[in-house]
């Protein structure tokens, strides 16, 4: 079993036949932005690109600004899409649907398993740099597979047993790319085409699959699932990433779901590098060949499948023997629902808007309950522009999760005498602004 759609199995030979047909449709260029929303089609597109020597492009967002950069980065890129209203401004390749089954009802057996070299460049993933252009990070086939072999073992996925893996995260996001696409393909488990969103969807997709089942998700979806009064179908393992889960929510998930919950830690640059069972310990356990090293300016990961030494986005306490603790994010980093940016990048985009004289984003105070999403706000000096015009411009440039709430128009920013702009001063300025009369 390679995959499931609507609870029905899709066999490996079907996958190979679909990949061969899709590969032929991709044309001669060397890069594919794989925008397929259906996870099976995404996996087919990935395999098709690999087999024809093309590199998949996985940007974290598809705003016009990012696509324009991508075009400069890879002028031959096409967009593989399975949606009618794909808004990406690149030459479009429509995902070729599986032809209706013929009289035999069997897919062609002619498709062959391609051999991929370990050093083949498989994907470029992107992080937002601190100034304008997204920063590319190379992912090679061998390193991706090595990482997934460790992941399967660390998640306790018994070899020889096919787990049906359901994910609420998109296949284009590094966590979803690994845990919901590469992991099943690399470890003999099955991926699921659907991407359930609402709690009722998650329950329905799980219930349609044979056990053992795995749910790959995030604190946001788990919080919604726990807050719903739904009966959760049996699930053998829950995997969470993108933000640390509180011990309380982790316990609730394990108790109500009668399951085991493991958290994965990683970044776009490094992929997954550590795991922990949150109800048992706060300590993360690193992949055996990966090392974390405290250096000036932060903690760096290197070794094993990590392609390039990478600075981690969190304050990390290295405990030795492959264990560590997280103590919150670095001050400049913004992570909302697994989408990562930096205050530097957001400020750069804000200040690039014609008419904006000065502007700065700030982290809003954490409010709300357990695992509630904390947004960013912004103070802007822009006489002649209103908030709606600024928001519309920002929408073209940055992912919507980073749109400022609130966006406050001010006469000047609270800079210190040395020109610094403390986050606390921005928050105080925002708090002092008049609020709408009936806002709660």
């Amino acid at each position, binding site marked *: 079993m390679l995959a499931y759609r609507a609870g029905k199995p899709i066999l490996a030979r079907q996958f190979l036949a679909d990949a061969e047909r899709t590969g032929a449709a991709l044309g001669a260029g060397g890069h594919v932005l794989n925008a397929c929303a259906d996870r099976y089609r995404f996996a087919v597109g990935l395999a098709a690109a690999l087999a024809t020597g093309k590199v998949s492009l996985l940007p974290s967002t598809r705003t016009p600004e990012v696509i324009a950069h991508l075009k400069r980065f890879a002028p031959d890129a096409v967009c593989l899409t399975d949606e009618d209203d794909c808004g990406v401004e690149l030459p479009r390749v429509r995902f070729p649907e599986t032809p209706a089954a013929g009289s035999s009802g069997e897919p062609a057996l002619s498709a062959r398993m391609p051999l991929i070299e370990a050093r083949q460049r498989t994907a470029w993933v992107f992080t937002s740099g601190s100034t304008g252009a997204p920063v590319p990070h190379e992912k090679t086939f061998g390193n991706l597979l090595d990482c997934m072999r460790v992941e399967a073992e660390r998640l306790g996925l018994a070899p020889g047993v096919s787990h049906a893996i359901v994910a609420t995260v998109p296949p284009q996001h590094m966590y979803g790319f690994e845990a919901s696409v590469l992991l099943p393909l690399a470890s003999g488990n099955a991926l699921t085409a659907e991407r359930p969103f609402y*709690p009722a969807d998650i329950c329905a997709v799980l219930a349609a699959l044979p056990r053992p089942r795995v749910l790959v998700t995030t604190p946001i979806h788990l919080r919604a699932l726990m807050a719903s009064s739904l009966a959760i179908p049996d699930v053998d393992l829950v995997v969470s990433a993108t933000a640390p889960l509180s011990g309380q929510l982790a316990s609730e998930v394990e108790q109500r779901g009668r399951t085991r919950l493991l958290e994965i830690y990683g970044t776009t640059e490094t992929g997954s590098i550590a795991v922990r069972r949150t109800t048992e310990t706060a300590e993360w356990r690193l992949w055996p060949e990966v090392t974390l090293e405290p250096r000036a300016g932060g903690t760096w990961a290197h070794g094993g499948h990590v392609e390039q030494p990478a600075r981690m986005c969190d304050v990390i306490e290295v405990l030795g023997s492959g264990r560590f603790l997280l103590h919150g994010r670095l001050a400049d980093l913004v992570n909302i629902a697994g989408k990562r940016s930096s205050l530097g990048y957001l400020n750069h985009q804000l200040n690039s808007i014609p008419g904006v004289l000065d502007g700065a984003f700030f982290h809003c105070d954490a409010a*709300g309950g357990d695992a509630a999403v904390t947004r960013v706000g912004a103070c802007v000096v822009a006489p002649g522009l209103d908030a709606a015009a600024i928001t*519309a411009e920002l929408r073209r440039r940055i992912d919507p999760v980073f749109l400022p709430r609130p966006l406050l128009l001010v006469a000047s920013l609270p800079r210190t005498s040395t020109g610094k702009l403390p986050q606390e001063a921005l928050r105080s300025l925002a708090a002092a602004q008049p609020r*709408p009369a009936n*806002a709660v």
Partner: protein
Amino acid sequence: MSDNVSSLRQPAGSAGITALTRELAGLIVAALNLEVPAADIGPDTALYGEGLGLDSIDILEIALVVSKQYGVQLRADSEDNERIFASLRHLAEYVNAHRTK
């Protein structure tokens, strides 16, 4: 199941829908901590994109509120899903047609 407004199990007149629209606006503003006053959210305001500018995290939050308050479980595979969030009035009509409390 038919989702036509004509097949409401608990039919509410247009006055009922209007009241529910106002109630939902208040719930959404409170749940999402929005800056905009609830009274400023008209029945035809789009919830996604250019209207209220909500994203999928917000929609999940609204789904929670709607399930707690009205016992309505939203489903993304329902054909109505896109229509439901097209405007506040559509959401109100859907909730009105499917509410269990």
